[in-house]
């Protein structure tokens, strides 16, 4: 359980570094023809430079970031609201980041609200939003 008094507003979470590989995308999304996730020719035909990772993979990375901070307080009581603003391509390297923005009392615990985002190797943000969970 995360200890509430040890978390401070403005605290920068240690970022996660993720290498997005086609093999991971295949396992996550399931290989099938005419999929922008696993069929490279199809992805190019649709105007993308190569296959895309699902946005949902980024929510999993953010979930890992938050679970490292809050443990059970994110597993039970966690929330997330994100927007996928740029595609994540096979081969991209993502940095998963968070900054604590707010601490809100909630039923005897503290809801820790974190601004979260993912950015690629070019420094472009690919996912932005907020995640929160409970500290005791």
């Amino acid at each position: 359980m995360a200890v509430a008094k040890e978390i401070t507003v403005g605290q920068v979470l240690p970022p996660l570094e993720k290498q997005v590989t086609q093999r991971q995308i295949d396992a996550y999304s399931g290989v099938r023809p005419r999929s922008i996730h696993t069929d490279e020719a199809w992805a190019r035909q649709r105007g993308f430079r190569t296959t895309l990772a699902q946005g949902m993979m980024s929510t999993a990375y953010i979930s890992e970031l938050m679970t490292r901070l809050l443990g059970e307080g994110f597993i039970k009581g966690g929330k997330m609201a994100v927007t996928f603003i740029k595609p994540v391509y096979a081969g991209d390297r993502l940095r998963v980041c968070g900054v604590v923005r707010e601490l809100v009392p909630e039923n005897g615990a503290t809801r820790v609200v974190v601004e979260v985002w993912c950015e690629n190797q070019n420094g472009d943000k690919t996912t932005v939003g907020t995640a929160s969970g409970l500290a005791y």
Partner: protein
Amino acid sequence: MAAPIAHPTLLGNQALRLRHTKFTVHGGLHAKQEFEFLEPIRPGMRVRSRGKVIDKYERRGKQYMVTEFVTEDENGTVLVRGRFTQMLFRDEEEG
């Protein structure tokens, strides 16, 4: 909390693919996702996701649909709930 437990977003794709159970829809891009994690997901659980379309709109020439969902265990206990927004490609091809 007894281990093992799954990562909270594990069942995200089960919910995301709900539209295919009702509609013959085009592929598209995932635009937004909201989650609320209520109970841990454990190995051996049998889970069901269900949802409904709560909004649709067009923006900058692109069509979007918003789905609200819950993922429950066999006893009806809600494990995860949330909503997602998907942008749909216009032509009749897989995404």
